[in-house]
């Protein structure tokens, strides 16, 4: 399976003793394209993103990334591959005791990038999302929307090949959403594979960015009209 981007092949996931959340799912998320996945809550959107990002292991089937069956790799290899993934979690998962900049730079620890270049990029991204570029503030002092924007910058800081976002606009006003869409368009233009899970109507109504809009059912992803 030598397809670029992310490919779900007969993907299934079930928690022990529970009904499968996903079953025999087939899908492809091409690089350079943004995909929007929507579904009612509890359908398995977050689970799908966690499977795509290598945080969960499927109980059947595979996730292929750029022609490699990454979901079946042992943890050390999967962890190394995950450095190419940028992820915005539904519950943000920021470290409350660190400052904004420290949170943003966390994914850069395993990379050998220049500190100055990272600070510059982080500052530019923070500014683009209407946050102070120095990032010295404590997370405790930020509102919910601002924290979500910090999480978005953290996902983008490493220029990830695979960008996965779970409800990234749930705390955003219209301006915040518009800024995010610009960043997503830039990432897709940079040949990243962008997958957004959301049931936000503003994203579903967006016509230019998302090349693919899908609706998730436990055993299939079908085009969302």
């Amino acid at each position, binding site marked *: 399976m030598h397809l670029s981007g992310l490919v779900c*092949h*007969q993907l*299934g996931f*079930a928690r022990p003793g529970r009904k499968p959340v996903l079953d025999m799912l087939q899908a492809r998320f091409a690089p350079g394209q943004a995909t929007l996945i929507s579904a009612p809550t509890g359908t398995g959107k977050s689970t799908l993103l966690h499977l795509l990002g290598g945080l969960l*292991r*499927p*109980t*059947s*089937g*595979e996730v292929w990334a750029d022609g*490699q069956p*990454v979901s*079946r*790799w*042992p*943890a*050390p*290899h*999967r962890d190394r591959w995950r450095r190419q993934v940028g992820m915005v979690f539904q519950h943000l998962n920021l470290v409350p005791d660190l400052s904004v900049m420290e949170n943003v730079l966390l994914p850069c620890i395993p990379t050998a990038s220049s500190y100055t270049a990272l600070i510059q990029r982080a500052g530019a991204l923070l500014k683009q999302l209407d946050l102070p570029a120095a990032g010295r503030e404590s997370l405790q002092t930020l509102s919910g929307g601002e924290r979500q924007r910090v999480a978005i910058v953290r996902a983008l800081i490493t220029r990830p090949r695979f960008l996965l976002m779970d409800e990234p606009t749930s705390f955003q006003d219209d301006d915040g959403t518009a800024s995010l869409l610009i960043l997503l368009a830039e990432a897709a233009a940079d040949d990243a594979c962008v997958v957004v899970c959301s049931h936000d109507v503003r994203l579903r109504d967006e016509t230019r960015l998302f090349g693919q809009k899908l609706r998730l059912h436990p055993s299939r992803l079908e085009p969302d009209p």
Partner: protein
Amino acid sequence: MTWHPTALAIWLLDITAWLIYIGAAWRLLRILPNWQPLSLDARQLWCERALELTRYQGRWVVLLLAAAFVLLLIGISNLWPSLVPGAMCGTGVLQAMGAPGARTLLYRALTLGMLYIWLVVVQIDGCRPEGWLSLLQARLLLMASPLMVLGTWSLAQALPALTTEVPVSCCAVLYDQVGGQGWVTAWTTDLLSSRAWFWSCMAASGAMTTWGGLQGWCGRIGKGVLAISSGLLLLWLVAALNGLKFGIAPYVYEVLGHPCPWCFFLTAHHAVGFVFYGLMAAVTCEALAGLVAVSVGRHYPVLSQDARQRSQRAGRHVMWSSLLFWASTAAPVVVWRMRFGGWID
């Protein structure tokens, strides 16, 4: 049964290792018949997850058993002689333990050797994500079980003997027999003199250092490498063990004709046994690692590059360990020569 704290600690480590090992073995026994790497079904993916878990479990087992082995050595050499009437070092303790004592050491050393081979296979396999050596790993880990059973069983037989009231003849009686009456003395004098054993040990260690250096530099994985490495390892083991007992011991103990391998561990002799035997264990383990890497590289061409790298690393480790062994064993002789200007023979 002795309730000495060291014995209890060994039992605790053993029981913990066993519990972890049983968990791993249970999984491995379910993995082996169901392993189908081309399948995508839930059973195969469970096998892959379970195999990954057994790798962590196996590492804990190695760590716990190695700790138990070191404690056993410390117990036999330094702590338990006070429990056995007449014992002054490990020789007396092993005499009290009888055959199970020696068997315990042998089986446990073999278990650790087998688990080290498993560890090297896991390391080489871990270089690539495809898991080419998954089944080999599973089988190797399971193959350690008979040795583990024997090691634990002989320990259970050996430890109760420590509470004996019957005095033993320790090394002073065993080895200090004058005039070639004892078998050890006879063997020493008949085969090689003390100085000849010393030089054999030095020469073999030098050869091992050179070979390790060569392997570390070029890391070839040809058939000849296997033969030369195994042959050299065997020769070096014989030369080093006998060199220690007959060639180096007189200079450490400062007395001729006392080839006791256990007195090296006594604090009166600065516990040099831990250095000597520790370095011997390091050389042996890394030489084994080199052999395993060469073998894997020959049988799995897809892993030959990774096997070659591991073989080179093993070569470098062998070189440094045998160099240290060479230096540390030569040191007492050099010091003696500098102090008194002569040989002990």
